[in-house]
């Protein structure tokens, strides 16, 4: 490995300097400002805001709905990834491209579309209303929106690992007498589980911060259908910047912890695959 001093390529100082300057101006300094701003609050004020009944209800709903949405995506996303890698069927390429739609579609569009679809007079809500199931403007609606935006994560993390899986492992299991289910459950699934967990964590993290797709389908009633980003937004709309900042700091700390967990998962996943698939 060549040291930077004797590299013949130019531009190290220029590009590193520019990278750090731009990163600091756009990301690091504004983020640091949030933490500094929150330190202007006394501990009593801070804890009154972040442990208020309304905030606690919002955390519960945010975590619960995000977890459920990521779990449902884990199950169905795994099947979609499996089908896309292993089987051939008509329209496979289109389905593959369409999986990224929740990333490409602006969240506001997703929000109004889902709210309209699942409203009692909507295409899907109209079917569910006679059964007594209300989706739009309820907690169930929040879950539907979070499932929509988290859909691509599991598919896109499992897909490449599944595609790279060596068929010899399955052949070995089969020739040693395992039936297909045993081969899947004992050989294939353990090899995919780090990728599956990474996808789950990514979908969960995205759902926790989601705003645009939820704001339309949720009725935004405190204690009932208000997730944390909606609560922060309503504090900002009321010019309650100190309260909004305190809540934002809690969410930022949770995001950083999740980012750390995802990094560790990814590190484990790479090492796991390196030792098992080498």
């Amino acid at each position, binding site marked *: *490995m060549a040291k*930077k001093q004797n*590299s*013949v*390529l130019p*531009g*190290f100082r220029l*590009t590193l300097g520019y*990278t750090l300057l*731009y*990163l600091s101006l*756009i990301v690091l300094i*504004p*983020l640091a*400002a949030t933490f500094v701003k929150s330190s202007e609050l006394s501990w009593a004020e801070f804890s009154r805001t972040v442990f208020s009944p309304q905030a606690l209800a919002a955390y519960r709903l945010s975590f619960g709905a995000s977890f459920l949405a990521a779990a449902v995506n884990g199950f*169905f996303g795994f*099947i*979609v990834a*499996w089908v*896309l890698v*292993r*089987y*051939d*069927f008509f329209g496979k390429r289109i389905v593959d*491209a*369409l999986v990224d*739609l929740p*990333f*490409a579609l*602006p*969240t*506001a*569009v997703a929000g*109004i*579309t889902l709210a*309209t*679809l699942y409203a009692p007079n909507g*295409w*899907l809500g109209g079917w569910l209303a006679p059964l007594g199931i209300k989706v739009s403007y309820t907690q169930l609606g929040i879950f539907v929106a979070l499932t929509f935006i988290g859909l*691509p*994560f599991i598919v896109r993390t499992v897909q490449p690992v599944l595609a790279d899986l060596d*068929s010899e492992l399955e052949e070995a299991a089969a020739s040693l007498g395992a*039936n*297909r289910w045993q*081969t899947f459950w004992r050989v294939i699934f353990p090899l995919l589980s780090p990728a599956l967990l*990474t996808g789950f964590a990514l979908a969960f*993290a995205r759902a926790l*911060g*989601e705003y*645009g797709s939820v704001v339309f389908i949720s009725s935004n009633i405190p204690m009932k259908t208000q997730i944390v*980003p909606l609560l*922060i*937004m309503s504090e900002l709309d009321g*010019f309650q910047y100190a309260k909004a*900042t305190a809540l934002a700091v809690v*969410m*930022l700390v949770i995001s950083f912890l999740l*980012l750390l967990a995802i*990094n560790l998962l*990814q590190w484990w996943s790479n090492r796991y695959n390196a030792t098992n698939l080498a």
Partner: protein
Amino acid sequence: MTDDAKINAPRRISEPPVVRCLLIAVALAFIALFLVVPLLSVFAEALRQGFGFYFQTLRDPMTVSAIELTLIAAAISVPLNCLFGVAAAWTIAKFDFPGKNILLTLIDLPFSISPVISGMIYVLIFGAQGWFGPWLIEHNIRIIFAVPGIVLATMFVTFPFVARELIPLMQAQGRTEEEAARVLGANGWQTFWRVTLPNIKWGLLYGVILCNARAMGEFGAVSVVSGHIQGQTNTIPLHVQILYESNNIPGAFAVASLLTLLALVTLALKTWVEYKSTGLRGTAFTPVPLKKRPN
């Protein structure tokens, strides 16, 4: 393993046909329910009042000004993030220095932050009660509830897109070709323009496509800093919200259909670039952490 090998393999290393059909059916039903039905309903709702109303909504001066502002925000943020992406990828992929993993994680930060918080951080700095608030008011400069705030928020949320696409690509390519160019007498710029850029053009294009899609569609962060002044600080997604909340549902969907078309064009271009250049995997859309590689 090729697809043909999979199909012709003995049953024990594949699933019985019944199971295959069942799994395909479940996957397609899930995709249809969550992706295809919403997609179709956007256009159905948009055209509910007929084509006349549809085009009238799109020609409305408020819609036109929202489109203009969205184009301005994307035209500023995409090139700046592109420049940053190339600089960051060059420094990370071509040189060794301590703290590289920390730098990679920091570049990813905007992905893990809620859009609402992404907008809020600029309000805390440039807003009336913010750090520079009094100074800005004194000098009559508006950033929050004005166009500069919208551009800043857009830059923040699209910050990692190009960098994420180029870093793994340039790491995989290594630096031998650039070193050869230097040894043969090319200067730094010549090396970059004639050797590096042709190698990374598809990755760069890919990053730009994804970055642009997010820049034009961002809602949460922009919503915090916009102030929602029709005709002045309204982007397309914010205009969708205003129409929807004023109960002009067909109008909201007519404007939303523009963003949906943008999303479909983005997916088509993305698939085309993937087809032209194997090895690109859209890491900007699925933010799996980037890892330092030994050069």
